[in-house]
């Protein structure tokens, strides 16, 4: 009798099979969904994510000088570029660049990496960048007086030799992308707000 019952069971799934499958599936999904808190706890929390913004007074930064400030734990490179530096940045054919996108958080993602798209209109002498090499996250040299600035007069990353031009665009070396331009705006002619 037992054998007969088992064989019909195997041929025709009954109510019990349905309950077993549904119950197990429910428990498995429940257990798997418990993983999420364990993964999510490692992401930046709300206090870290709260967009802190910094205001920077640019008045003391003379032409040719640079200033580094911190924003969200990252160094921000600000440089008051000389006329020749601006010209050098403008006279580059965007198509010849390793990365031809502007990487400017104030502009749409697919804008090209012209110097105009990397700066703010009317303040072309100012370049504001996140000072983190896009290769492996080192801080490039070129902010301090007397620093090595590489072949293109911008920034030079000492870790693996990436070279950026005066617009912060990657020109040579292993870095894949241009230095990023953070979201910022001019409050007055000599004051910016980052973030």
């Amino acid at each position, binding site marked *: 009798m037992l054998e007969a019952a088992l064989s019909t069971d195997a041929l025709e799934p009954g109510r019990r099979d349905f309950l077993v499958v549904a119950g197990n599936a429910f428990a498995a999904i429940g257990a798997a969904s418990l993983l999420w808190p364990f993964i999510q706890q*490692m992401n*930046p929390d709300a206090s*870290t994510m709260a967009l802190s913004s910094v205001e920077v007074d640019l008045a003391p930064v003379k032409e040719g000088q640079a200033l580094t400030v911190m924003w969200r734990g990252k*160094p921000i490179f600000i440089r008051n570029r000389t006329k020749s530096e601006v010209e050098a940045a403008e006279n580059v054919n965007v198509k010849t660049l390793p990365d031809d996108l502007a990487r400017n958080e104030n502009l749409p993602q697919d804008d090209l990496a012209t110097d105009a798209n990397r700066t703010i209109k009317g303040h072309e002498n100012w370049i504001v960048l996140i000072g983190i090499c896009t290769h*492996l996250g080192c801080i490039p040299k070129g902010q301090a007086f007397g620093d090595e600035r590489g072949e293109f007069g911008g920034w030079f990353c000492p870790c693996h*030799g990436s070279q950026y031009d005066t617009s912060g665009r990657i020109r040579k070396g*292993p870095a*894949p992308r241009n230095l990023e331009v953070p979201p910022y705006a001019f409050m007055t002619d000599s004051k910016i707000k980052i973030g």
Partner: protein
Amino acid sequence: MGGHTSNYVPTSRWGKWMDERLPIARMMKNQFIDYPTPRNLNYLWTFGGILTLILVGQIATGVVLAMHYQPSATAAFDSIEQIRRDVNYGWMLRDFHSVGASMFFLAVFIHIFRGMYYGSYKAPREVLWILGVLIMLLMMATAFMGYTLPWGQMSFWGVTVITNLFSALDTIYNGLGTAIVEWLWGGYAVSGVTLNRFFSLHYLLPFILTAVVGLHIWALHIAGQNNPTGLDLKEPSDTVPMHPYATSKDAVGIFAFLLIYAWFVFFVPDYLGHADNYIEANPLVTPPHIVPEWYFLPFYAILRAFTSSFLGIPLGQYAKLCGVIAMFSAVIIIAFAPWLDTSRIRSAKYRPIFKWFFWFFVFTCVALGYLGSKPAEGVYVFAAQIFTVCYFLFFLAVMPIVGLIETPRRMPRSITEAVLGEGGGGLPSGAAAAPEKR
């Protein structure tokens, strides 16, 4: 565990009572006293024991160091100095732990090269070999996170560079890499939050490592040990009991190794480290020349060999991704050795061509290590690219092809013949105790 029939006889009432409930004494006697080991094992086979000892030592020193260490961005650097200067015997315990990491890798590299030379990865030891590669990966992760803890400049920038490797995934799917990196960091840059979680994982991983080592030893005792001839065990005279034969040989190896270890700890504890790590972490200043610990240098050289071009092939924005893939592949490919090697002969002793390629492979690894310590520019990059190619060709070309074209040397019929010469057999002259009959 496999091997042989048990001849454990409990002698006391308590022993008998226990044997019927949890036969742990029986297991220990079968697997670590009576266990038949090949009679021809050389000193390269003592590194398994050496590695086990270092693992236990690292956990012991690590647990007590954690009693004094403070895993926070403000206190970590000072607490290490306090351990070295103020804590009783802290100077010694800390150096045993930090030098221990180097010794661990030194021993594991010798252990792996031993396996490659004598073909220990071949059937029936494939799973044993893969578990070994997994152990090395876990060791690398543990050592990397441990190096973060002193929170010096090299710690900070080492973490920055290595965690940023994952951002290479941005070239596959925009934003994916950045999301992973920020998840690892718990912020937008490496910070005290990162240090804290790395401390937690650095404490956890060695216990997972211990579990995998347990599986590694289990798998070893199923297949039995390989030996310098690479021959299977065929007759009782091929083996001697593990104790006292293999254990006393292990003891000699362990003491010799401890001499070297202790010399580093007591005379040059910082020789294998970097002076930059005695400068507290500063997120605004990158040291001019970031180098990982010596044991990561060959892999670091492979990572950096992929600049905007590789041996004339332009890589463009994929340079970083290629470097990252190559570096991880360099470790993973080792696990495939059992299937890449087409030769039926295990030991390189009887493989005249493979033997030369093996030593060239050792040279390749040392050369990559040297290049990893040099700045990534000029001729160093070119040399690193050449040796990166050599590294992968050893696995992808030498292992499959040499096995097919090589004529092996004449091999002895058994381990006994290899030791005693043709017509030999029976007992070794010094073995009056007839160990295999005990």
